[in-house]
């Protein structure tokens, strides 16, 4: 089950062009392409004629032509051409999805179209801001999206899973502050007076102790913004060397998810060596996560009914996010069961 009345990251902007591409989001196959003017389009990736994937076809003008028998669909999903006859069958239409392009990501709304409002997409400007240097990755995680959410909300795993990459022994020694407001869960960890981690020390040629922080802001159900960095002891965070990590988590199905990742920093932004090393190093970190969560997914599937996670205080953000996710699912189920009422409730940041 998935929350559908929300925007999911469907692709990087550069991945969507005149050649149709396929994505599966929440078990819905979607074809993405651009019109001649460059506007992105998202349609159901299933021809109304015989269910052939439109992504295997081609773009003609502003439409996509099915590669099987040539049915052609415009950006609104309406069939515009049927070979061998001039009359378009009344049912010849595919679903058109609300779509929005912002800061390098293509977002698609998977729920009721009339509820879609691009203003509900959280701030992601860092990855397109010239004052920040960004490296990106996207990875197919062979696990349910929930495991990625849990992973991002409990960064103590860095001390163990990533001990040879980004981990530090002391992370789990510092307590967290969890805040829940609307559909947003924050998990903040302040690590006062610790040695500057190598990323900062090496690129900025600094040494000594700093206040280090991690704050994961989870816009349930699909985007984590990690506000991380170091600052002078006792100094405001905004004065420091800052990192913003955008984690767009898009369910494919019950056991797979796409992970869209953008790591932006506001220091050493012209240091191309550092950028290259980060690109390489973060790929290793993501691989460690992907392998661990795939193993966890296998463990979950083999777990006997009635055996549950043993959560501890450190998992406060995890548990609260699960509650928010369940509430969103329940809202959609209730709306679906009440056909005469307003059908859904969109997910809005802080709502």
């Amino acid at each position, binding site marked *: 089950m998935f929350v559908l009345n929300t925007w999911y990251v469907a692709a990087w902007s550069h991945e969507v062009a005149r050649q149709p591409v396929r994505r599966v989001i929440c078990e819905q196959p979607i074809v993405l392409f651009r019109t001649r003017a460059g506007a992105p389009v998202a349609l159901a990736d299933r021809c109304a004629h015989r269910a052939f994937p439109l992504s295997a076809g081609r773009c003609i003008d502003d439409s996509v032509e099915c590669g099987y028998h040539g049915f052609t669909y415009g950006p609104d999903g309406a069939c515009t051409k049927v070979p061998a006859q001039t009359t378009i069958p009344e049912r010849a239409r595919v679903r058109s999805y609300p779509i929005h392009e912002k800061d390098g990501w293509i977002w698609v709304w998977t729920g009721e179209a009339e509820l879609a409002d691009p203003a509900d997409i959280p701030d992601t400007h860092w990855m397109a801001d010239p004052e920040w240097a960004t490296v990106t990755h996207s990875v197919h995680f062979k696990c349910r999206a929930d495991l990625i959410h849990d992973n991002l909300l409990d960064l103590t795993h860095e001390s163990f899973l990533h001990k040879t990459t980004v981990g530090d022994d002391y992370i789990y020694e510092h*307590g967290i502050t969890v805040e829940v407001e609307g559909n947003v869960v924050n998990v903040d960890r302040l690590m006062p007076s610790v040695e500057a981690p190598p990323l900062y020390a090496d690129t900025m040629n600094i040494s000594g102790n700093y206040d280090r922080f991690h704050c994961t802001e989870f816009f349930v159900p699909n985007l984590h913004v990690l506000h991380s960095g170091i600052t002078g002891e006792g100094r405001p965070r905004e004065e420091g060397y800052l990192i913003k990590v955008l984690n767009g988590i898009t369910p494919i199905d019950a056991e797979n998810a796409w992970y869209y990742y953008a790591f932006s920093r506001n220091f050493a932004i012209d240091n191309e060596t550092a950028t290259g090393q980060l690109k390489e190093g973060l790929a290793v970190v993501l691989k460690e996560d992907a392998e661990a969560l795939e193993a966890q997914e296998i463990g979950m599937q083999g777990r006997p009914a009635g055996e*549950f996670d043993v*959560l501890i*205080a450190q*998992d*406060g953000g995890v548990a*609260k996010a699960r509650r928010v996710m369940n509430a969103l699912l329940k809202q959609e189920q209730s709306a679906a069961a009440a056909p005469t009422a307003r059908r859904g409730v969109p997910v809005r940041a802080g709502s």
Partner: protein
Amino acid sequence: MWMLVRANALGRDEPGPDGRRVLAACPDTAERGDPWRWSVGLQDGPDGAVATATTDETYVVHRDELFAGRHTGTVVRPAGDVLVVAVLRGEALVAVEDGPWERWVRPGDVFVLEGEDDELLRISLAGGDSAATVFVLSPTTPRALRWVP
């Protein structure tokens, strides 16, 4: 672990038949089978909102203190105890005793502190008819009372 759950947070417990809404509980979710230890709730009474704590007294005892008006002071959370702040009326500012972190807490919000080190929390009420109840939940055994999600 500190936790601030706002009144508008999705997934909060619905009020029970008696009108009492659970603001915080241990465990927070009963479905995994963790044994219940305590809950703090808020309900309307003839004289306004009232916050109450219920506990499994075999394991947890509690005391509470009502702050009102323009009260400002620090509250000690001994290591291994849990402290819960529930605002009845108006606003209360909760803050790290020696640091910049602070948040305004309002009726329906709940602030929970727990952990295995002593802590000091500064609580300042906004004045007027502002009122807040602070609960200190203590284990009856030497083991720390840790919050269970």
